[in-house]
């Protein structure tokens, strides 16, 4: 499998799960690459919204290094501020959101606040919600990009920053007062997860060619459901790789980085 880097696999999978005629709420890095790849291949009428306030920018100046970057506003159709971006989202005009975080549980709740210690004096404080908490609540479908590690796929997370399905009860999100339908996919470099419609628990949908569900379960701190229709993850073709490297991230800011964390 050495011919595909983890970053390529995540970016390509991110592209595959998006649908045409949708608006994707993106953060810097992989989400932008995934959405651009989708635009250039199977979903030409996808548009991106950046939380600093741009809609449908044309990313012709290279990869924005920040969601407020000048480059993320280039030739946009609409340019306002954070209120503009999130009001559209709360209104129902953002179909997909890419978010990340330090930990995720089986119901797709995500922590990006802290680990260890307690809230008032955390051992390791992270930057905080940023847009993630609002995206997880108000975008229609949430796609998480995570590193597949046991400590990140945790039975119990330290803090719920971004709402998933809560405790899995059918009315958790309704009682919480959020609009979006919730977690949709979780993308890692070795597996693609979805959520069981009945139990709202994380379900293994696809594995890297050559991997078995047991290999993935090994890296997850809670019991995974396995899809009865388990598939192999599709790998990017030469043409896809060309698009990723030449069009989506020509400077190699993200694709050429080693996988960190």
């Amino acid at each position, binding site marked *: 499998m050495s011919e595909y880097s983890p970053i390529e696999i995540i970016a390509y999978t991110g592209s595959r799960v998006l649908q045409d005629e949708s608006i994707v709420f993106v953060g*810097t*890095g992989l989400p932008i690459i995934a959405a651009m790849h989708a635009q250039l291949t199977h979903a030409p009428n996808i548009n991106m919204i*950046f*939380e*600093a*306030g*741009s809609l449908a920018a044309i990313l012709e100046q290279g990869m924005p290094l*920040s*969601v*407020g*970057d*000048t480059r*993320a*506003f*280039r030739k946009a159709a609409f*340019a306002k*501020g*954070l*209120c*503009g971006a*999130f009001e559209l*989202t*709360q209104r129902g005009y953002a179909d997909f959101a890419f978010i990340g975080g330090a930990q995720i549980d089986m119901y797709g*709740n995500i922590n990006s*606040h*802290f680990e260890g*210690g*307690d*809230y*008032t*004096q*955390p*051992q390791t*404080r*992270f*930057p*905080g*919600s*940023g*847009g*993630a*908490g*609002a995206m997880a*609540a*108000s975008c229609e479908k949430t796609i998480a990009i995570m590193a597949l590690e046991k400590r990140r796929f945790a039975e119990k997370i330290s*803090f*719920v*920053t971004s709402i998933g399905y*809560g*405790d899995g*009860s059918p009315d*958790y*999100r*309704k*009682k*919480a*007062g*959020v*609009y979006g339908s919730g977690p949709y996919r979780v993308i890692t470099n070795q597996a693609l997860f979805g959520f069981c419609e009945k139990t709202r628990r994380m379900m293994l949908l696809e594995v890297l060619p050559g991997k078995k569900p047991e290999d993935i379960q090994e890296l997850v701190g809670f019991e995974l459901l396995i899809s009865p229709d388990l598939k192999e993850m599709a790998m990017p073709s030469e043409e896809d790789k060309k698009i990723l490297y030449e069009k989506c991230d020509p400077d190699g*800011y993200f694709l050429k980085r080693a996988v960190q964390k």
Partner: protein
Amino acid sequence: MKFIQSDVRKITSLSPEEVKKRDERPFEFWGPTPSDARKAAVNKKKGLHDKSTTLKDAVKKHLKDGINLGIGGFVNTRVPVALTHEIIRQGAKDLTLSFQSISMCAELLVGAMIAFPDHISVKRAEIAWWGYEIIGIAPLFRHLTSRGEIEVDDYTNFGMSIRFKAGAMGLPFIPIKDHGGSDMEIVNRGKLVECPFSGDSVYLLPACNPDLAIIHVNACDVHGNSRIFGALCTCPEIAQAACHTIITTEKIIDTDSIRQHPNLTEIPFPVVDAVVEQPFGSYPGACYGNYWFDMPEFLEFRKAGDEFRKTGNKDKLKEYFDKYVFGCETFDDFLATRPYKKLKELRIQDQGQSTILI
């Protein structure tokens, strides 16, 4: 109105003591109340005056101990760095910071507190995010939180933005459809309620009205009518919510131009108290239409902060402030420590985004 709870208490990892403490804590605004902010507006002289001044005088007039400082921009974009330097030069105690997402400006303020605790201090921050984005986590924020040396109240980026919006609208609170069902419902000062009209759950956030907003814009006239290009961030809302607002601007433009394109005015003159023309006022941050980020500069300051976090040695931090803040009388003096070619390169990297200045 009926206060309700989501089921987050069934899944939270917060200790029962923490939850109890939060439940029993009486509500307070972390700065002016909406009525205080209203009074400040009513008491202003509202004519069209020439408000142009220097950074030094503007900050001297409005910076006071214990105030809530609202910081404009977004992470590294159009951030008020020149104003932050001046605030550090002059010093103030027990500041409350309010912003959605900020990198260097917040790190500079708390870095100055760590290096010179008798000169400046920050006691708490109401925020959504504190970090350097692609460059990494904010080491000084991590250090201070791990020691419980700064109190934090957490919201989402939308949450902080519409808290300022509520402040800008003269409202005491505003409803929002996020925060509920996350641990922020337990820890922050918002409240989940049953909507009196739809019966659905909705989260209410208190308005945020800073005492002083510090905002950098692309262009404004001497009265403070401000134009912003690229991301507005939450600058119009923060400026209008605050009791007082200092604007730094890349360029002062004619009022004739403002009156020719009044739709382009994002911050109207009555909310602005002082105007300072300060080219490169967001450096090393980016300003759409003017210049792009200077990433190595961010890295240099972040490295000083990270070294302190890891070793406890304040030398690098002190050195940075001594050289670039206290060692400079004006922000122009600081910019003069950077090669002209570097600043010119940042202008080129912006690639001439379109702005309307005439």
